[in-house]
């Protein structure tokens, strides 16, 4: 039954979460050599080395360190920034909303444009519209987020000077925030617009070939009703299944877009902290992204199962 599947899936997810924490806890020890040098590089000062050694508890045994990091992470303690001595969770808390808004806006835009594009193309297979949209889709799919971001920045922010190139604005000024959000969102969404268009087109064509659709049309229902009311409802299900993966992809792609548009999100935080060798921030921010990715996949998996009666039944018989 779905209840049992749900329980198994949640248990498995918990194990993966714990292992992810342990992996990040042991990360500095995966590279041979003194972990302080691994973190700070060969030319670190004595005092900073001592700080890092104490802060990360590097003198205790490796299993102890992994245990401490995992238990700390479970309690919401990800350590301190080497420089400012602020808790890593505070820095992540400031950055996370900007990344989430960007990822969710991009996913929303991708659904808003990709799904209708796929449906429209599927209702006219091999028409000119379908052919052009297929070429556009594959071009968008292969367009890396950082290339799209740079081109948009060049055209709309620098050449045409229509939209801001730098920063995210303030939440207190929603209009300004939205203006800052437009280019990064389009850059990040591009791949997924193409991807969803293709996915929806394929699954729509599959559904349209089925008997119940033929019957509906044979009894004289209007095409519009058949396409949008009957076919789309089933054709959209695979899309739901990939949205979880999509959100994770977008969190990864967000790194590039944030760096290009200087948005103070998690990606910028990670890249800046790698440069300044502030390891606790890198580790903490990466853990938060992994947790969000795992949670999104779990949510998508469940909604997929709830939406599709065929899978519910198959799950029961298995």
């Amino acid at each position: 039954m779905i209840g049992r599947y749900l329980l198994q899936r949640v248990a498995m997810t918990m194990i993966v979460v714990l292992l992810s924490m342990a992996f990040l806890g042991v990360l500095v020890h995966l590279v041979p050599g003194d972990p302080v040098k691994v973190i700070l590089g060969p030319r670190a000062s004595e005092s900073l080395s001592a700080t890092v050694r104490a802060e990360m508890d590097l003198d205790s045994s490796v299993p102890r360190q992994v245990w401490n990091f995992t238990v700390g992470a479970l309690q919401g303690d990800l350590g301190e920034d080497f420089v400012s001595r602020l808790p890593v969770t505070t820095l992540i808390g400031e950055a996370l909303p900007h990344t989430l808004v960007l990822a969710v806006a991009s996913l929303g835009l991708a659904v808003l444009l990709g799904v209708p594009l796929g449906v429209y193309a599927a209702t006219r297979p091999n028409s000119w519209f379908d052919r052009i949209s297929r070429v556009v889709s594959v071009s968008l799919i292969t367009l890396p987020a950082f290339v799209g971001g740079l081109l948009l920045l060049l055209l709309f922010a620098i050449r045409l000077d229509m939209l801001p190139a730098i920063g995210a604005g303030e939440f207190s000024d929603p209009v300004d925030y939205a203006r800052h959000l437009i280019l990064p969102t389009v850059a990040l969404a591009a791949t997924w617009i193409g991807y969803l268009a293709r996915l929806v087109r394929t699954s729509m064509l599959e559904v349209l070939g089925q008997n119940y659709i033929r019957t509906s049309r044979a009894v004289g229902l209007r095409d519009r009703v058949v396409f949008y009311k009957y076919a789309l409802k089933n054709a959209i299900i695979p899309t739901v299944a990939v949205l979880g993966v999509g959100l994770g992809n977008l969190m990864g792609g967000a790194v590039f877009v944030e760096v290009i548009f200087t948005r103070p999100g998690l990606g910028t935080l990670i890249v800046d902290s790698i440069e300044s060798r502030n390891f606790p921030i890198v580790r903490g921010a990466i853990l938060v992204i992994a947790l969000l990715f795992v949670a999104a996949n779990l949510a998508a998996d469940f909604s997929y199962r709830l939406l599709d009666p065929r899978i519910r039944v198959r799950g029961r018989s298995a």
Partner: protein
Amino acid sequence: MEAPAVTRVSRLGGRSLPGAKILKEVAGRPAGLFGLALVVFLLLIVAFAPQIAPYEPSAQNITERLQGPSGRHLLGTDELGRDLLSRLLFGTRIALGVAFPAVLAALVAGLVVGMIAGYLGGRIDNALVVVMDTVQAFPAVILALALLAVLGPSLRNVIIVIAVSFAPGYARVARALVLSTKQDQFVEAERALGAGDGRIVGVHILPNIIAPLFILLAMDLPAAITVEAGLSFLGVGVQPPTPSWGVILADGFDRVRDTPWPVLSAALILMLTTLGFTMLGETLRDVVDPKLSGVRRWRRG
């Protein structure tokens, strides 16, 4: 839920076409011809970069810095007066020289892990699946960043991190294919005749599962090229002055208000490369094994 799809693949995917015939079918489709042409063109550049490039990629000429396109420099110069066209042409060697070994290493590692998990089964299988799940709990770019934070930036390390983050994909497919193949009658017959595990895996299972993995490799190449360029763009991958397209994009981004040419030309060659490899890979998949399209995987970032 993935396993049955893959199983079906291997059943119907037994079309063993000779190489020349595959090539002919790929070239017979518009997308395949387009991809093939682009890829052959890139491979020619890789082979003959020193002969084609008008300048040394690292030759500086400060008096001619930040120029637009001209007769002397077809795509202009960068902030150190280096010829942009020459750097982009040599960049093909970095892009493919990182991506190809990386995906090949991912395939080999994934194949070994997947075969062990699928063939031995039981607790070893469970443990390996959990490890794969954990690696895939991180979006690929994010995992690459985590590993590069401790490994440090270098061309070799970029190959390593791409291989690690791509390997679980191959392991999953290899495992599923082994699980189905090992039930086959011919494997049962071999076992009854007294063949050992080594012989069964090496002689009977491996040749039957390797083709789909190479199709996945072809489809992963553009993703690996993108990841390398992206990491190098962020400054954590291939380091300057090596002419990685990501490095050229990063340099160009710093100077984008002075001259748009480095960003535009590097973006264009990167887009054409990923498009060409994707179209070739997808056509190859459709020709060799139409059912394999069910095994589409998700590259992140």
